[in-house]
């Protein structure tokens, strides 16, 4: 398990998946997809982006993307390109890959350990569009796919508020406080009126997580 990844993060992400055509980044996102498939979503179809023809023809059929990023901001925009200025970056990241087109067309579940350096008010570079700067922006620029639906962390789950397009705290993992989440979030994080606690792992989920499941 990579640093900052917790079982609750994998569980919370896996529970968001119902089935359908999916691609996932290596590491925690793929672990969450496999967990969903081993438990409640056996029909989840996990595609390999290296399949010939995928980029030109297969990608637009993808319904769900499980991804990670270096930075996410208050509107769910994602950065995997550079930290700092594009022309003189302080750090070069892994690059765009399929993330921009995935964020344009599919529903995106972002898995990212909740740390202040990653949860920033505004990303240094918009590699992939979340809500851009407000609730009407996606439609205004011609993005008609769903885009980010949840940012799942080791502390809880953030989802875009349809009225503002801003990410708000909707789920809190066991033992975590709102203050803890706010301390690791770089913008004044709103808490949903319907905040829920993440359910602990079921027996089936625990078995799948420890690899003793089917």
């Amino acid at each position, binding site marked *: 398990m990579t640093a900052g990844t917790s079982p609750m993060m994998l569980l919370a992400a896996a529970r968001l998946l119902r089935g359908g055509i999916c691609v996932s980044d290596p590491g925690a996102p793929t672990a969450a997809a496999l967990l969903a498939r081993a438990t409640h979503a056996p029909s989840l179809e996990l595609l390999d982006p290296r399949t010939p023809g995928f980029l*030109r023809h297969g990608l637009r059929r993808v319904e769900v993307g499980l991804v990670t990023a270096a930075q996410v901001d208050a509107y769910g925009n994602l950065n995997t390109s550079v930290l700092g200025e594009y022309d003189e970056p302080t750090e070069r990241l892994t*690059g765009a890959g399929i993330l921009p087109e995935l964020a*344009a067309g599919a529903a995106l579940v972002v898995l990212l350990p909740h740390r202040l350096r990653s949860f920033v008010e505004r990303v240094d570079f918009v590699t992939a569009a979340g809500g851009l700067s407000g609730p009407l922006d996606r439609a205004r620029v011609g993005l008609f796919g769903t885009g980010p639906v949840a940012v799942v962390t080791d502390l809880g789950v953030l989802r875009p508020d349809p009225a503002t397009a801003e990410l708000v705290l909707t789920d809190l993992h066991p033992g975590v406080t709102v203050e803890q989440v706010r301390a690791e979030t770089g913008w004044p994080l709103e808490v949903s009126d319907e905040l829920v606690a993440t359910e602990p792992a079921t027996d089936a989920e625990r078995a799948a997580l420890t690899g003793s499941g089917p």
Partner: protein
Amino acid sequence: MTGRSRVGNVRVRSSTTTVPPMATISALADALDALVRNGSEVAWEGAPVAVATVLARRRVRDLTLVALNPGISGDLLVGAGCVARLVTSAVAGPDGAVLPRIAAADVEREDHTATGLATAYDAGAAGLPFGVLRGYVGTDLATVTRVATVRCPFTGEDLAAVPAIAPDVAIVHARRADRAGNVDGLVGVGRDAVYAARRALVTVSETVEELPRTELPGVAGLLVAEVPESPVPADFAAWLAEVRA
């Protein structure tokens, strides 16, 4: 000798080889000597580590490397100082971490999305000047890289346009080839990169007696080299100093 060639869809046997073979089995070093020059634009789609180490030994310079993801082999090539310009969509290793030598390298960069590069190869393969896609929308990439907007002449929809990639050479990997140079098991955009390029080398993990067909029909001058899996030198800087001494 008994040669085999294809006339239309009919496979024929001839007592003499009247049609030159579509692909030539070659030693890796010979193939690279024939194909790669200083300053070449090289499509690098799955090239194994051995290709990078041969080019590093040869002190090839000023390459433009085009790759969806250069991988560990591309990272070594950049680390050896062979590359002046990188056109990529991702620079990640198999574990998802950034490729260290590329992250630290002072080379010119052109960043794209994976779909953007796939579209650019596709345009190059089709002999078109640019390719069209729905992409880059709402991203900062659109403001920093070579992408433009074109309007659909039929619907009026605005679409992204990327300049075609038509490299001097494509180096791609496939699972296997046969003794006649038929190739099978290309992945990713390997096929498109070969058709987009002027010359191409396919590295394969295995050579078999005979394959029923090739995934690369009609590519004149194609070279095929069997390349064994070779490890990354443990101390690459020391290895490089030694082979160049």
